[in-house]
């Protein structure tokens, strides 16, 4: 459905996107993962024909973004990071305007507006001025305008940013419901977001592609190593941090031990395992056998930063994605 090859976008002084290639199959939800400034928005803007690429090609449903922008635009629904709303318009008026702009005939537009209003659950505000809406509602109106013309491809730039937890869950559910009919690309810098809603992940950092893989493969790869937060204390007198650290390091499967903080004689550490090793049981045993108190032992999720470290620095080959980029059969 979407094919990006060697895409590069250069601004006056910086390279925002550097030679990125990936493909998205029809009906998939793809997460675009990367820290702020990684080039996610730029890539999406190229796909939506808002920005022309400096080099490389991008096609949507077989239409090139440079040669056939109108055809591409017809097939894309786009929700930018800040929803493109006119505060002086009422919700229904706005949706009618966007619907007409996207090429829906005036006979059909009311019906379509009714459908998306229901789908995005904005019926109770449809006669309100957009300027008076809360952030969550604005986001939903933004989503409604993106799907109003029933596009093949949905491109959502950080659809859950700035929402409260309840709204985030609602938005995720909404996106999942849309998945059946649409191919969806959504960008985020939150890993759990991708785990919740996406089937594939494209990770980029500083404009470069770091990995494209299915969510399962990626999480397995990451789960291979675990990080554990650990707090140790002693009932008889203060402990020597260096000694504790040394003992923890000797536990089988531990790759490194990072001292975190010392408070009232309690020592906190973060312990990381080697690939594919489970160390929590051994750690607990080791601490208890030494006669210390184990105050806390919990698995810590790997942060996005850790993933980048693992995917870029951690592996010998700088292009772990290469094997995933081979064209697959049956792709649009």
């Amino acid at each position, binding site marked *: 459905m979407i094919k990006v090859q060697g895409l590069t976008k250069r*601004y*006056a002084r910086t390279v925002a996107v550097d030679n990125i290639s990936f493909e998205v199959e029809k009906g998939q939800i793809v997460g675009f993962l990367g820290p702020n400034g990684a080039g996610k928005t730029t890539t999406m*803007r190229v796909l*939506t*024909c*808002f*920005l*022309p690429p400096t080099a490389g090609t991008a096609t949507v449903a077989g239409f090139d973004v440079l040669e056939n922008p*109108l*055809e591409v*635009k*017809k097939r*894309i629904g*786009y929700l*930018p*990071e*800040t929803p*493109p*709303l*006119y*505060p*002086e*318009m009422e919700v229904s*008026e706005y949706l009618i*305007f*966007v619907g*007409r*702009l*996207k*090429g829906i005939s005036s006979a059909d537009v009311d019906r379509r507006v009714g459908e998306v209003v229901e789908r995005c659950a904005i019926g109770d505000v449809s006669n309100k001025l957009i300027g008076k809406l809360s952030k969550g509602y604005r986001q939903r109106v933004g989503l409604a*305008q993106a799907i109003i013309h029933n596009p093949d491809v949905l491109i959502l730039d950080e659809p859950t940013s700035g929402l409260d937890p309840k709204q985030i869950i609602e938005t995720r559910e909404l996106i999942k419901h849309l998945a059946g009919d649409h191919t969806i690309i959504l960008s985020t810098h939150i890993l759990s977001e991708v785990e919740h809603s996406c089937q594939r992940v494209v990770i980029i950092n500083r404009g470069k592609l770091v990995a494209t893989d299915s969510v399962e493969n990626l999480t397995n790869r990451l789960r291979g190593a675990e990080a554990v937060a650990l707090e140790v204390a002693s009932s008889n007198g203060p402990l020597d941090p260096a000694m504790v650290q040394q003992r923890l390091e000797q536990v089988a499967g531990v790759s490194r031990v990072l001292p975190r903080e010392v408070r009232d004689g309690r020592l906190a550490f973060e312990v990381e395992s080697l690939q594919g090793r489970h160390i929590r049981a051994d750690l607990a045993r080791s601490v208890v056998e030494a006669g210390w108190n184990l105050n806390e032992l919990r698995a810590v999720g790997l942060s996005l930063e850790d993933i980048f470290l693992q995917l870029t620095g951690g592996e010998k080959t700088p292009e772990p994605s290469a094997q995933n980029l081979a064209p697959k059969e049956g792709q649009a």
Partner: protein
Amino acid sequence: MKNVWIICRKELKSYFASPIAYLVITCFALIWGYVFYMSTAEFVRYGFMAEMQGRSAPMNVNEMVIRPLLQFGATVALFLIPLITMRLFAEEKKTGTIELLMTSPVRDWEIILGKWLGALMLYLCVLAASGLNVALLFAFGKPDWKPILIGYLGLILQGGTLLAIGTFISTTTKNQIVAGGATFFACLLLWLLSWTAYDNSGSGQIMSYLSIVTHFEGFAKGVLDSKDVIFYFSMIFFALFLTSRSMESVRWRA
């Protein structure tokens, strides 16, 4: 063309949803009304005086009331047009709604033409406010209506040109104040160029030809000169062409 109309309607609605439309119409109606009152009063006083002195001077409403009024209106428009055009693109660039327009299956020129027409519609509403005064003249006198129509056509053409220039300037910035200020300066400059009409050298003549105001004089007199019409149309075309170039460059740079 359908897209042009959709955008045009949206623009016009936005004007009336904000204070701009009311502000511009009120300002123009007040100033125009005041000048209308002054010039009609003068006209009536002059008529009385002529009668008292027992000589019947040739009195012409068109020449003594309407022509100066139209010329004055053209000058007032110079000041109001920046208020109309400054938001056209600058506001959309600031709030990010330009992304919606530019990622919709709409051509750039359709967006530009729609916005310009929307601004022109508001300008027509402004002119319509002045029509009330002119209608009064018809109620109490017998002005010739053809020069009036031509005069209004001139106002529309001149307004359309300045609106096109303002539309172009609005694409160059995110800041409405900057867009408004620059447009105002451009309008002022095009007006001041007419002062060089007294300079008979070649450059003086060229400058005065470029002035918006010199081309309006014929219309104010009720003379429809194709030269002036062509001037305004080519200016509008040129300014809207620049707008499309500017939008293109927004794409490449943004």
